[in-house]
């Protein structure tokens, strides 16, 4: 086959990979030297050929293949290291070629609004820019999961003259859409700039009308403000009064509350002291009950107190006793009950007691004189004055005998 003559006809065969090695070598050699070679057709067929596997049912390789790939690549580490070094050196060598001036110029150009517009109008988008963008997208999107392999396209990559070749019409405008926000932003900036320029002009040219345009003239506004401040005085005064009244009320209510609390505290203190005394009596009673020679004397009522009764608990070892009286008639303020012991026809006062109004059972302690239990001992409770009497009166309420 005459490859030199027919190689233009072999573009599709080359793209679909059905040339043998000799034909392929010749084809490559020819196209390298042919300035009229139909690169456009070759590119389309190459893309077409590459698209063929996209219709296959996708299978995933086993998971261990990835690690095998990694192992395989590791074998090339030295080779890659060398290439990397070479790449770094080339990059550093090429760096000075990139001058800063064009960037600066570009920035200066873009500082003026007119230039932005000119830039936009003259250079709507150049292919290189799109390429760079899509390359970036390619990298970023490459971090998607395997499952997303056949996700709908973002359609950012096919641009330029052959955009019709592989994309639907719907997908075509997408790269252009990308530029729209940029354009819009530029226009916005332009409008804002105009506004700032227009403002001073309006003030200078129409200074008076602008003042008149306010709904109240300045003089009127002043008086209005003065009136307004006058009107506020009673309100402020009223507020002040209200504030003072509020503080006063707050002070009084707090004070009353404090007094109430103090009263409560006093009551509690009194109760505590009563409870303490009661506790002491109880403990004394318990102590007395533990002694050896304890006697209990039941006090019975007389004609003055039918329902009254009482008890005496006496320890002759300690010469101490406790006295309890119950259901006793209510006493006048100046009167009390007095406990007496009668030994050998002589009465000895053991104490003067005023039972509580609530009639609660209570113990009163008393001291006994030295007594002999062999003789007859009687006890009586008489009604006497608060100060007590030297000898019992006629009003005897309780009596008992040991």
């Amino acid at each position, binding site marked *: 086959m005459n490859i030199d003559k027919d190689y233009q006809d072999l573009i599709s065969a080359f793209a679909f990979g*059905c040339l043998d090695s000799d034909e392929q070598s010749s084809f490559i050699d020819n196209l390298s030297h042919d300035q009229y070679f139909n690169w456009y057709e070759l590119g389309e067929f190459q893309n*077409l050929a590459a698209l063929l596997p996209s219709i296959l049912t996708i299978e995933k390789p086993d998971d261990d293949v990835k690690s095998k790939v990694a192992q395989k*690549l590791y074998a090339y580490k030295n080779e890659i290291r060398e290439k990397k070094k070479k790449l770094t050196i080339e990059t550093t060598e090429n760096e000075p070629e990139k001058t800063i001036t064009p960037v600066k110029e570009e920035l200066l150009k873009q500082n003026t609004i007119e230039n932005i517009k000119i830039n936009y109008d003259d250079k709507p988008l150049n292919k290189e820019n799109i390429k760079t963008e899509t390359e970036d997208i390619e990298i970023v999107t490459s971090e998607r999961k395997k499952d997303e392999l056949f996700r709908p396209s973002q359609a950012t990559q*096919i641009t330029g003259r052959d955009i019709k070749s592989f994309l639907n019409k719907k*997908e075509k405008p997408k790269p252009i859409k990308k530029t729209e926000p940029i354009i819009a932003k530029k226009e916005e900036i332009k409008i804002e700039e105009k506004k700032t320029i227009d403002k001073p002009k309006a003030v200078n040219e129409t200074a008076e009308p602008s003042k008149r345009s306010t709904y109240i003239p300045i003089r009127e506004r002043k008086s209005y403000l003065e009136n307004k401040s006058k009107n506020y005085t009673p309100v402020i005064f009223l507020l002040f009064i209200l504030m003072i009244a509020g503080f006063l009320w707050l002070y009084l209510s707090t004070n009353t509350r404090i007094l109430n609390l103090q009263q409560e505290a006093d009551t509690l203190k009194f109760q505590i002291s009563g409870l303490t005394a009661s506790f002491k009596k109880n403990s004394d009673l318990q102590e007395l009950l533990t002694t050896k020679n304890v006697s209990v004397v039941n006090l019975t009522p007389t004609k003055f107190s039918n329902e009254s009764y009482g008890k005496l608990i006496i320890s002759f070892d300690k010469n101490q006793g406790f006295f309890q009286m119950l259901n006793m008639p209510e006493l006048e303020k100046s009167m009390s009950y007095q406990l007496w012991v009668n030994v050998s026809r002589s009465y000895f006062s053991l104490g003067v007691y005023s039972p509580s109004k609530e009639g609660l059972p209570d113990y009163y302690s008393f001291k006994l004189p030295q007594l002999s239990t062999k003789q007859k001992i009687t006890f009586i409770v008489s009604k006497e004055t608060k100060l007590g009497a030297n000898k019992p009166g006629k009003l005897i309420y309780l009596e008992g005998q040991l």
Partner: protein
Amino acid sequence: MLRVANYDSKALEVLYDRYSPLLYTLIKKIVEKKVLAEEVLIEVFAIIWRKIELYDSEKNNAFTWLVSIARNKAVDVVRRKKGGAGNINYSEEFENRFIIPRLSQTIDPLDLNTASSISGNVETALNNLTDAQQYVLYLAYYEGLTHQQISERLNIPLQTVIAKIKIAANNLRENLLTEGE
């Protein structure tokens, strides 16, 4: 791909995650055996890693570049197994010349997402070809037969095979354009 071109291994891993299912499917379609397909896939990624400097980032067509490497490598394996690769040793030069694709200077950019989004259109366009056209393309692309071998297989003149491939490719392009509209 730019990061891969800077020998960024993480980027290659990402590339593997994205492209390995498609490349593996293609390779398996060509070599037919699973184990062999996996071996070829490993080789393909090794080639990508070693020969990334041959990728022209300005063309921005990673898809066609990667698919072509996988297809060429798989076909080469099949041809060598069948003894159809002649006596050519597999060398760096061979790899650079016959495995690494020489993409057109004016090729349109294409990526995986775009390709997958139009795969339905490709399928329809392919189905609209005649059986003969489909078969010729199949023999060429997946079976890796040269046009000479296709001619022998189908018992038709070589020029007819070349013409049929050309017509099939043109029709496929036209059908895809129609589908795209």
